[in-house]
């Protein structure tokens, strides 16, 4: 136990070095991808398209930041995509019932947190495997969304509710500064609060964290609740973007988030990674996906490419790390 305190700063420093390297590589790739798609598509560089791009990946930013917290603890959340649909449904229903945007916001975020709390209790308290529990809530939340919407979309006309996801200042969607704000807030939480240190501790070594009295069980619960809350915010943005709530929204969003987070250098095994990496990962991944959509790629080919990207990144990471270890 005594070595943890002494060795931690040194190891952290080394990890940051390799992460910094990775961020530089990511920035390079982002530039290359932008240039590539810019050549392939004349509209890519227009300010309007950049606004559309950022708006379309705003939800991915939020969800991926939640996923980063979870993956730092060594977990996974397969339910976020379904949760976005469910939370959106609850929010829209609450909104139409009361005609108060504030109630709608609160309902959406609370609904997201509720699914997150189920995940958290099963994973943190009962210590069941994260992918199994979240696979169950993946079905549950999607099912509840379908029930709420009765498998049909609901149009939303409340301007205040749509503001966050739909409004733009010129070519700048309102949601971009909002995402930046969330990023800052979550960074403070992760790097400047005891909770953030608990997150790293739970992911680095659950048993050690437990012995040291850092209550990793409780940390896990809150991490999933946080992810749920971000899914709720994402739901509000999604509804705002298309002015309607839809039961099939966010399908496979969790997959995109996992890929983006891994792309950003967060370890699958917990304890290693930073929010900045996730931001870069989402940007790169978002540019690729957006480019595929703009160039009219077959959606099934897109899925194949997505699957290969995830596999490729995980493979590359593992091989590089193994080589370093030798």
């Amino acid at each position, binding site marked *: 136990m005594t070595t943890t305190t002494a060795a931690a700063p040194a190891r952290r420093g080394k990890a940051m070095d390799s992460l910094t390297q990775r961020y530089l590589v990511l920035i390079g790739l982002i530039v290359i991808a932008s240039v590539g798609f810019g050549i392939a598509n004349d509209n890519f560089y227009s300010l309007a398209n950049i606004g559309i791009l950022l708006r379309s990946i705003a939800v991915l930013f939020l969800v991926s930041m939640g996923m980063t917290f979870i993956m730092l603890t060594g977990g996974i959340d397969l339910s976020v995509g379904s949760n976005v649909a469910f939370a959106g449904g609850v929010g829209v229903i609450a909104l139409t019932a009361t005609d108060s945007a504030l109630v709608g916001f609160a309902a959406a975020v609370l609904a997201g947190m509720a699914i997150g709390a189920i995940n958290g209790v099963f994973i943190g308290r009962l210590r069941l495997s994260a992918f199994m529990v979240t696979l169950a809530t993946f079905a549950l939340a999607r099912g509840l969304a379908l029930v709420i919407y009765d498998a049909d979309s609901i149009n939303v006309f409340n301007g205040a509710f749509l503001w966050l996801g739909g409004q733009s200042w010129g070519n700048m969607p309102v949601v971009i500064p909002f995402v930046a704000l969330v990023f800052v807030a979550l960074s403070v939480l992760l790097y400047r609060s005891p909770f953030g240190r608990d997150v790293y501790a739970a992911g680095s070594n659950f048993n050690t964290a437990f012995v040291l009295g850092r209550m990793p069980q409780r940390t896990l619960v809150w991490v999933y609740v946080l992810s749920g809350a971000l899914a709720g915010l994402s739901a509000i943005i999604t509804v705002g973007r298309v002015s309607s709530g839809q039961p099939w929204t966010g399908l496979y969003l969790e997959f995109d988030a996992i890929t983006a987070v891994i792309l950003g250098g967060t370890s699958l095994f917990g304890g290693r990674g930073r929010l900045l990496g996730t931001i870069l990962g989402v940007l790169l991944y978002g540019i690729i996906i957006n480019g595929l959509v703009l160039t009219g790629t077959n959606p099934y080919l897109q899925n194949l490419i997505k699957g290969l990207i995830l596999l490729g990144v995980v*493979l590359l990471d593992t091989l590089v790390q193994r080589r370093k270890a030798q």
Partner: protein
Amino acid sequence: MPDLSRLLREKNIIFVTLALCLVFYLISPRFLSLDNMSAISRQIVPIGLIALGQFFVVVSGNIDLSMGMGSVLFAIVLGVFFGMTGGVALGIVAVIACSLALGFFNGVLVTKLRLPAFIVTLSMLFCAQGLSGLIIPRGQQIFLMGDFFRFIGAEKFMGLYWSFLFLVALFVLAWVVYNHTRWGAAVIAVGNSEENARLAGVNVDRVKIGVFMFSALCSGFAGIMLSSRMGFVQPGLDGNGLLLDGIAAIIIGGTLILGGRGTIGGAFWGLLFIGVINNALNLLNVEDVWHQVFKGAVILAALGANWVLWQSRQVEAH
């Protein structure tokens, strides 16, 4: 009271399933009719194949998320070969070859490169889905007609569907392999502790690769069964629903999701439970939108119940 908890753990699902049957019968007498029973027996075949393959994967301490979409892909492979040659022999050989190859690939990535199984198979899920849609364009389908598909999909032997008999035979075979062979013991050992299994002389990597090849083969069979019953293949088939049903069946059957524990009999009863629920939801005209809610809730409840039962067992052991 080891006997009571043992009875509860291993046999509770039997009582629950039978009680459910009774309730559904009281609501709708048609539920227990011979026609409906045989309909259930046919509906559960693809789910049962997924459950059986997944059972070995989960007991070995892994997960195979690619099984559902894999089935869809393999069904499409079968359809394409059928469309080209008009026969099924080549198609079935192709399905078996492709599924074993996919399983081998999954297994090698998980063992040799030590990647987490859920990430490998999650990306395979996407690759399989993408490939399905590339082989047959969206909105199109290939119709499967002929003696073979009628035989698999609709022919009966002494009142039972051939496909159901095939499933039962496979379960019996799996039971023998799981309980009475070195390989079965090795799978359990690997699921309990890879390190101990290795020290005991088990070739852990080979066991795990074998498990993934078996699960992929099962999804290949599931694809054949599914497409024969439906009479057509298309990329939009609900592979994830199949995967969820299969996983639900084995969790309900008491398989420990951390690996190392589980019984084939339990998995079979879990499968019947899922079959009964699915059938009853349709028969009682429960709206489609509720089906997924039930599935998610049932898996969660089963996870919780398993946890309670294993917890009480651990207390006893101390």
